[in-house]
């Protein structure tokens, strides 16, 4: 029947495009990572897997194994992402919860407030903070006046007065939170919105206090949404390099993304850069497939 092939034919341009500009591109990464460097420090990809040169890959792995700079960067990235995610959930969940369940007639307005930052250019949002946190910026002044600066100095989260943009890990983490939290709140909101109000009412009816109903009904039901949203945000965060670059001038706060960027785009160690990219992709692969599987399952349940 002609029907079947009509639809496959329609898919062809898209599939073709993604195959070439996505799949082949990844194969290029593999082939460069397992390739070599010529005399001009340009990468020479080895297209045939049988020719693959494991030299560069082994170098990187050895570096990690012996606690070298790559391990440091990876661990730092992990730490940044973990802390930033925790903070984002801490702030984002209550906001999403409020919007989904208690906003009442203001819901539209609040949603607008949640959606707008989502669409403001990421760099512009960072730019705004650079303005505010520069030594003579309003933000610096306010933080000083409110005593927060003193608190951070005391906690060791800030090295010098007014030096927010001076290679501070705390600033990077908070910037990550600021940058990525809108991407977390909206899926959280959607998941919470989908929870049937009646189940919570049933729990209350059976004797649960508001807190108990939340812990025993709402929270578990929203867990898939929390996980999905977290993964959705953690993935790009792992590969972030522009945030540390913008809010911290120093290599002290380098994330793995910075390392890759320095080697690949800025410098001439593209092979090592490709190896690191490969490593990053592999680490994140598990997360990526988890997310894909959970959305597919959610879509199936939705349709049922």
């Amino acid at each position, binding site marked *: 029947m002609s029907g079947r092939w009509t*639809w496959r034919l329609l*898919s062809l341009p*898209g599939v073709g495009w*993604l195959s070439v500009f996505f799949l082949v*591109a990844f194969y290029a990464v593999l082939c460069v990572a397992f390739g070599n460097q010529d005399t001009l420090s340009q990468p020479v990809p080895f297209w045939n897997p049988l020719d693959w040169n494991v030299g560069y890959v082994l170098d990187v792995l050895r570096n990690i194994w012996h606690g070298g700079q790559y391990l440091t960067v990876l661990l730092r990235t992990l730490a940044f992402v973990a802390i930033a995610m925790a903070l984002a959930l801490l702030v984002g969940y209550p906001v999403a*919860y409020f919007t989904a369940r208690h906003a009442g007639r203001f819901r539209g307005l609040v949603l607008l407030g949640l959606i707008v930052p989502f669409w403001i250019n990421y760099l512009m949002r960072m730019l705004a903070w650079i*303005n505010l946190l520069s030594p003579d910026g309003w933000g610096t002044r306010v933080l000083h006046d409110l005593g927060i600066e003193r608190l951070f100095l005391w906690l060791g989260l800030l090295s010098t007065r007014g030096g927010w943009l001076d290679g501070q890990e705390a600033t990077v983490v908070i910037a990550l939170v600021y940058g990525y939290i809108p991407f977390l709140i909206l899926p959280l909101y959607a998941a919470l919105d989908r929870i049937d109000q009646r189940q919570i009412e049933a729990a209350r009816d059976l004797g649960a206090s508001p807190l108990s109903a939340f812990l025993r009904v709402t929270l578990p039901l929203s867990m898939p949404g929390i996980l999905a949203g977290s993964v*959705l945000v953690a993935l790009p965060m792992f590969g972030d390099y*522009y945030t540390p670059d913008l809010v911290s001038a120093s290599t002290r706060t380098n994330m793995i993304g910075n390392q890759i960027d320095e080697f690949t785009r800025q410098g001439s160690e593209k092979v090592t850069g490709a190896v690191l990219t490969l490593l990053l992709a592999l680490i994140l692969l598990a997360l990526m497939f988890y997310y894909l599987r959970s959305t597919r399952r959610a879509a199936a349940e939705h349709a049922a």
Partner: protein
Amino acid sequence: MIAWVRNPWGRPRWLAVVTAAYVLWSIVPVGIAILFAFNAGRSRTTWQGFSFHWFTGSTGSVLHDPALQSALEHTLLLAGLCVAISTPIGVALGLGLQRWRGPGGGTVNTLMLLPLVTPEIVMGVALLLLFLRVFPGIGLGTPAQVIGQVTFTLSYVVVMVRGRLASIGREYEEAAADLGAPPHDQLLRVLLPLLAPAIIASAAVAFALSLDDFVVTQYLSSDASTTTVPMLLYASARGAPTPALNAIATVALVITLATLTLAFLVYRRFAGGREAVELASLEV
């Protein structure tokens, strides 16, 4: 005030406080940045009076600074090309996937979803190497930038089209067939008109994504002529730029928000509020 917050019968007021604080924290800094675009003086931190100088002034403004203008033009060029290419391909792929029968559909679906979950730097490096070593004939520059942008916006178009198709369902096509319409007419006379709001909306989203894109665009740029507004923001942010930077960022922002608001309204008019919100938050 404390009593108002701690009201035991009403909804938890502290949640409202947190939410309000978050929204302010989220938007106010950007508001301030926009404000300084209208600063009369050169400072980006000290208010010196209101002026349109950085937008339309004779020197160093968006309208008259060649570097800023070129960046804005290039950004819009890329966005236009990106939309022109990714929308048709994406709509076709969305239709094909939604109606796919038989084996292979799952694999194609996964392939389509992969760009959505791939970190941008990974895509940037991959595309960079692709245009350096696989297609050196194309090399870096505008064509590469367009191709890179299409590659990741495609999936967004597909997802939105599929979402709309799912809610339309098969009935209208069946009714058309029942009344004598052959398959291509079912598509043209019934399905595409019903799909129109989703197509417009996804075109707008692709436009906005392209406008705001940074990593892939930067990785595939060749020289100063292929600089976009986001790249400009990145390069100048830590220097000592004038409020012209704020001005151009504001211009780009206005374009993006206008496009998206239009898309949202179009979609809502034809599809319904709930779907439009899901669209805005890009439910995958």
